[in-house]
């Protein structure tokens, strides 16, 4: 049963990610990415990361993708996008990585990775959300604060980059 769900989600994720790259219209690409986000959220549910699944839908599908669609429609592009001239290089990199992945998966006799020691925290009997909150606000408190700083910097940077020059606005008005 679990495998059926995994193969369904995996197939749709792989197909949607290929569509994201292959579609000519950026809006179709963004919508394919939306399908992919939803199925990644479903994959998280099968991995017992329910809270992350909800966050995936809210943040990725709800915020990030809407921002993409907003910019795509704001710019109102012509449909002249084709593939890059450097596709031989892309094919080279892709084939190399693909062969590497096949070799790595074909290598048998690997033992399973050793269990991590140290700050590992088991999910235990508590709910997934509770366990994440527990670890996030105790062990990873400092990275959490750094993440908030990153968001602040990104917000200020986005505003400064996207706004028009104040002198232009003043001279116009």
């Amino acid at each position, binding site marked *: 049963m*679990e495998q059926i769900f*995994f193969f369904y989600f*995996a197939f749709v*994720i*792989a197909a949607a*990610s*290929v569509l*994201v*790259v292959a579609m000519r219209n*950026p809006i179709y*690409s963004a919508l394919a*990415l939306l399908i992919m*986000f939803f199925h*990644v959220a479903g*994959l*998280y549910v099968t*991995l017992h*990361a329910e*809270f*992350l699944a909800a966050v*995936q839908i809210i*943040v*990725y599908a709800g*915020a*990030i993708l809407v*921002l*993409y669609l907003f*910019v795509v429609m704001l*710019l109102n*592009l012509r449909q002249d*996008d*084709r*593939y*890059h001239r*450097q*596709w031989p290089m*892309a094919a080279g*990199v*892709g084939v190399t990585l693909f062969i590497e*992945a096949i070799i790595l*998966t074909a290598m048998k006799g690997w033992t399973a*990775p050793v*269990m*991590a020691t140290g700050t*590992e*925290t*088991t999910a235990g009997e508590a709910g997934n959300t509770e366990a*994440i909150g527990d*670890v*996030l606000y105790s062990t990873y408190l400092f*990275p959490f604060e750094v*993440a908030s700083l*990153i*968001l602040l*910097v*990104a917000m200020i*940077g986005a*505003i400064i*980059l*996207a706004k028009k020059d104040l002198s232009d606005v003043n001279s116009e008005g």
Partner: protein
Amino acid sequence: MTVPLSYYLMLSGIVFLTGVIGVLLRRNIIIILLSVELMLNATNINFVAFSRHFHDVAGQVFVFFALTVAAAEVAVGLAIIVALYRAKSTINVDEFQLLKW
């Protein structure tokens, strides 16, 4: 009956590879950013799969940080795209040759 870890790694590898090819192949800068999102999602799948495998919540916490960085990247990246479009009225990466040697 459970799904082995290597299946998740293979899926994440496929998605990441698709993202890399998209970055190298496409000329539309918005699609390039979407491909970067694909790569970030591939790493997130890896994190959650390992978190399940090791019964350790830390992997899921790191997905949060990756999510934060993705959100910041999108905000700044799209602002740069809007600024570029204002300056050059195109978002085709072939047209941006200012730093080309």
